[in-house]
């Protein structure tokens, strides 16, 4: 049971990766479908990059082969878009009814240039009241074929930006 002094931020997941690429390249790799279909869940994203703008992720070619995959796999709304530094949005998984029922979560990407052409990318995902999604994104369902969550997504993102080729999936 949660006690009163325990802060609700314990449902937040934080991931960080250092990538040898420009902030602009990383921004594109997060917000453009030709990049997002090359790593992680390989969805094709569609961002209207302004406050209140719609966010949708469509299944990539691989995912679309399966029956029952919805037309839109993730939806949400852009809260803040400050290219190439900061992207804040809501994010709801639509892959199954239980995940959909957990509702919208809050996702932040922070991009900070560092030394030697290395850029720091931090993903902060507030997953309050979304325990099943939190487990999925922590990689708990990887053995069932549900992907390795954020750590796996960011590993793939780094690989595709640094080497130009995709991680084995």
């Amino acid at each position, binding site marked *: 049971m949660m006690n009163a002094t325990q802060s609700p931020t314990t449902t937040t997941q934080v*991931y*960080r990766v250092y990538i040898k690429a420009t902030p602009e390249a990383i921004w594109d790799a997060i917000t453009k479908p030709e990049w997002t279909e090359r790593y992680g869940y390989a969805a094709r994203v569609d961002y209207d990059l302004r406050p209140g703008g719609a966010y949708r992720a469509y299944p990539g070619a*691989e995912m679309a*082969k399966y029956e029952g995959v919805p037309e839109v796999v993730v939806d949400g709304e852009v809260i803040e878009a400050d290219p190439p530094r900061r992207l804040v949005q809501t994010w709801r998984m639509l892959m199954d009814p239980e995940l959909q029922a957990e509702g919208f979560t809050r996702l932040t990407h922070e991009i900070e240039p560092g030394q030697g052409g290395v850029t720091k990318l931090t993903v902060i995902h507030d997953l309050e009241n979304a325990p099943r999604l939190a487990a999925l994104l922590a990689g708990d369902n990887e053995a*069932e*074929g*549900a992907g390795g969550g954020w750590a796996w997504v960011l*590993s793939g993102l780094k690989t595709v930006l640094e080497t130009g080729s995709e*991680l*084995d999936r």
Partner: protein
Amino acid sequence: MVTYSEDMTDDDRVFKALADPTRRFLLDRLFERDGRTLGELESELEMTRFGVMKHLRVLEDAGLVVARKSGREKLHYLNPVPIRLIHDRWIDKYAERRVSALADLKSELEQSS
């Protein structure tokens, strides 16, 4: 005092950080419940605050812990990405090439139908 030689790689920092039972204990605590303050972590160890801070610094330098401010507090989060990077590269290099997890799922579903 932990010192790093200049040519120490990211992977070296990860392995060095993991090669200590106190630091693994701290990571286990964060795995149980993420986003803890120094005070919370300190209360689980028979160690001075300074000692815990030193270990957290090594974990942060290795990228295994990310500290973020939340109001007046500094919260520590477990970051599994550096371990994932080592894992993914290791599998790429030495193991059988992984077939896609989705492809496995697909053949399983097709067989059962």
